């Protein structure tokens, strides 16, 4: 009995006092050369910059470690440790190292450090995500003390972008260091604008300004990252002044925070697309059946069915009602501003009646039975989006069920949960980001036919396959001339959209919340960098 009440009361307490879980800290007003406290939705899983490449880790590591090429707020390449670079011929690039860049321990950054970093990043013990995807096709050579030569197996136009993913560490320090040594701070020595101070998993990461930094000096002498995973708590922490900045403001809070005179919001359309994927590989798809549950031939092999689905789903309503401005309806694979975006592709208006007629024409006058799978803790409001999609498909006669599950279970099953290790689901919600700032990653990994040997189509869980499009994608990837490449990519996008390889649903809009005396205009790569935040005025 007693135990019972305790459980119950503690549950209630959690519901009502979400904000009270935070350690109460004195509220600081921001000032020049002061401390900036950032509340992060996701915690960096390691201080080792090569261990796990996800947004939170990249955000933190960008403070401590430079790359040879950096990305600005809309993901254009800007000089990092390399002050310039040039394409010698299709397969060869040369990067000129900046003079005067030093590590936090005073050592100068050398070409050896670069070569060592790329070798280590491809082979970190226990790494969750391996940077080999970006580095595997490259050989690195030292030309002279300031020149690094990169040779690729095939002509590769996006070498600078790919190298922008990999943090540069010191060879001297890094040779003997394990990922643990980065977490303790011992090996956490980079050349970035901030130096390591403290890392307490689950609680805090602190960094302080590196005065010998080669680039523009950030305005904050100290930056504190605090993980606050619960949306409501994060908002409460910002409102109470416990933190100065938060990332990923929940959609439901955007409206009332906007009205708060003490706060300001910064937005950036993410380079990510959230989409619905069909099983187009198997002849019979396990979760698409007749209404009585008996097996039917895979309906998604029929273009008309895919088209009807696309027409039935009101993306504008989802963006407006469910995401309340935290998402823009997606008409193609990448949002405007990303290289390869095709401005001629327009957003379609939803039309349930026409979609129903198309489904009838395709031979499903009464629809069929379908389970829609998706994660429930990965994207903003993901389970609400799943339900809204289900609602819209129910209107054209699909007997639809929704199965939303935690992302760590979902992704495993989505990739290999089916019979014989194939992707399990018939119709599912996933997302893909153009991490290199070009549409090529999406085309290569998501749209290109799946090929285990070459790595093409590595994220093509629906097994969509169009040989003509494959050829075009490969042609684009080997075209170094920017204008020509862009034209090819635009054509690829148009083909993929017309073919309904996937149904693009929305581009998430990342929203940052900050005190009104701080200024930040948002980034497209979702990273939260203290260097981007400035005192207003």
């Amino acid at each position, binding site marked *: 009995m007693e135990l019972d009440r305790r459980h119950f009361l503690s549950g209630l307490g959690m519901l009502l006092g979400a904000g009270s879980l935070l350690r109460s800290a004195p509220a600081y007003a921001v000032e020049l050369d002061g401390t900036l406290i950032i509340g992060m939705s996701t915690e960096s899983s390691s201080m080792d910059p090569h261990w796990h490449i996800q947004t939170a880790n990249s955000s933190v590591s960008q403070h401590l470690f430079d790359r040879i090429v950096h990305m600005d707020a809309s993901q254009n390449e800007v000089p990092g440790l390399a002050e310039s670079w040039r394409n010698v011929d299709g397969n060869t690039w040369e990067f000129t190292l900046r003079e005067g860049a030093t590590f936090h321990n005073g050592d100068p950054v050398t070409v050896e450090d670069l070569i060592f970093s790329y070798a280590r990043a491809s082979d970190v013990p226990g790494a969750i995500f391996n940077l080999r995807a970006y580095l595997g096709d490259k050989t690195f050579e030292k030309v002279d003390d300031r020149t690094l030569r990169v040779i690729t197996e095939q002509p590769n136009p996006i070498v600078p972008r790919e190298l922008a993913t990999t943090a540069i560490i010191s060879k001297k320090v890094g040779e003997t260091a394990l990922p643990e040594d980065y977490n303790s701070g011992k090996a956490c020595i980079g050349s970035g604008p901030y130096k390591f101070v403290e890392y307490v998993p689950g609680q805090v990461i602190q960094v302080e300004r590196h005065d010998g930094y080669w680039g523009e000096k950030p305005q904050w002498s100290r930056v504190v990252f605090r993980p606050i995973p619960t949306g409501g708590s994060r908002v409460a922490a910002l409102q109470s002044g416990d933190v100065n900045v938060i990332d990923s403001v929940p959609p439901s809070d955007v409206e009332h925070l906007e009205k708060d005179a003490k706060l300001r919001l910064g937005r950036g359309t993410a380079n990510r697309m959230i989409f619905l994927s069909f099983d187009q590989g198997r002849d019979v798809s396990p979760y698409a059946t007749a209404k009585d549950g008996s097996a039917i031939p895979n309906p998604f092999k029929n273009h008309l069915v895919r088209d009807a689905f696309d027409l039935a789903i009101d993306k504008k309503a*989802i963006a407006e*009602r469910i995401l309340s401005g935290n998402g823009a309806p997606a008409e193609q694979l990448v949002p405007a501003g990303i290289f390869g975006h095709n401005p001629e592709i327009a957003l379609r208006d939803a039309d349930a009646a026409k979609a129903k007629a198309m489904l009838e024409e395709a031979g499903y006058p009464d629809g069929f039975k379908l389970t829609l799978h998706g994660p429930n803790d990965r994207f903003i409001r993901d389970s609400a989006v799943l339900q809204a999609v289900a609602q819209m498909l129910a209107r054209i006669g699909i007997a639809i069920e929704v199965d939303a*599950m*935690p992302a760590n279970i979902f992704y495993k099953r989505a990739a290999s949960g089916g019979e014989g290790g194939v992707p399990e689901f018939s119709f599912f919600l996933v997302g893909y980001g153009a991490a290199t700032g070009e549409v090529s990653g999406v085309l290569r990994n998501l749209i290109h036919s799946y090929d285990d040997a070459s790595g093409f189509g590595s994220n093509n869980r629906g097994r969509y396959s169009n040989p003509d499009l494959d050829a075009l994608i490969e042609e684009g990837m080997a075209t170094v001339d920017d204008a020509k490449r862009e034209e090819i990519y635009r054509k690829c996008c148009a083909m993929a959209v017309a073919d309904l390889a996937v149904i693009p649903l929305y581009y998430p809009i990342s929203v940052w919340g900050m005190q009104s005396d701080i200024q930040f205009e948002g980034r497209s790569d979702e990273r939260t960098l203290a260097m981007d935040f400035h005192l207003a005025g």
Partner: protein
Amino acid sequence: MPSDIVDPFARDPEATARPLRDFARSYLRSPSGAVGLVLLVLIVLAALCAPLLSFQNPYDLLQLDIMDGQLPPGASSMAAGYTYLLGTDDQGRDMYSAILYGLRISLGVGVISATTAAVIGATLGLIAAYRGGRVEAAIMRLVDFQLSFPTILIALMILAVLGKGIGNVILALVLVEWATFARTARGVGLVESRKEYIEASHVMGVPTWRILLQHLLPNCIPPLIVIATVQVARAISLEATLSFLGVGVPITQPSLGLLISNGYQYMFSGMYWMSVFPGLSLLVTIVAINLVGDRLRDVLNPRKDS
């Protein structure tokens, strides 16, 4: 053994002529017990008659319209022509209807899992008490083992393996709850089986199953009823927790826990109705059951002269 042996202890000769009325009278002597009972009856009736009392079937996707989403209490529907008494959630689900349907799931899951757990647990507990020896040791060590893990952890693990769904939630709850019943049943069973009437039945050659079912079980029932009531409340809150964490019921068929979880994201935006109303319903339900359980414990306690 001849079956015509008279079994003089099959019924308690001391029982009063109107046991039920006496019981009711002593139960109602406590105002809080009475209030709990009235609330519980109302809640159960509301849950049973949910389709009659609600405007909308919140589980039928065709009746939902996201254009009606996030409406405050008292707003009228744009399409369907009724008033949303408690507002709508982000999917355009009428909160009032969703709470009634959610109560059905919560109560159903609670009652079914507690009953099943009671049957399994009591059977094993009584067998342990009556047989003793190795059987008892085996069963009770299993119980100890089970009780040494936090229930939420076991339930989460089971659901992670089996996947979501109401059936799996019930299964998980049964698996975490049976041990409590087994332990109680064994405790009471041990006391009772040392008593003379059991010994007498034994001496008279009454078969074991009959001793267990007809003599031991009826006399162990009162404490089990109390435990069962409490366990129903516990199962409901556990189901709500699991759904809140996103591993319980399917999202298109929200139980109270899932409704709270959905609305929780809107807490700070002023759309309080999405989580407060289901939260209150859950609170009232659990309080009512616990009040009834408390009172039953007092009334059924042989040591307490009520």
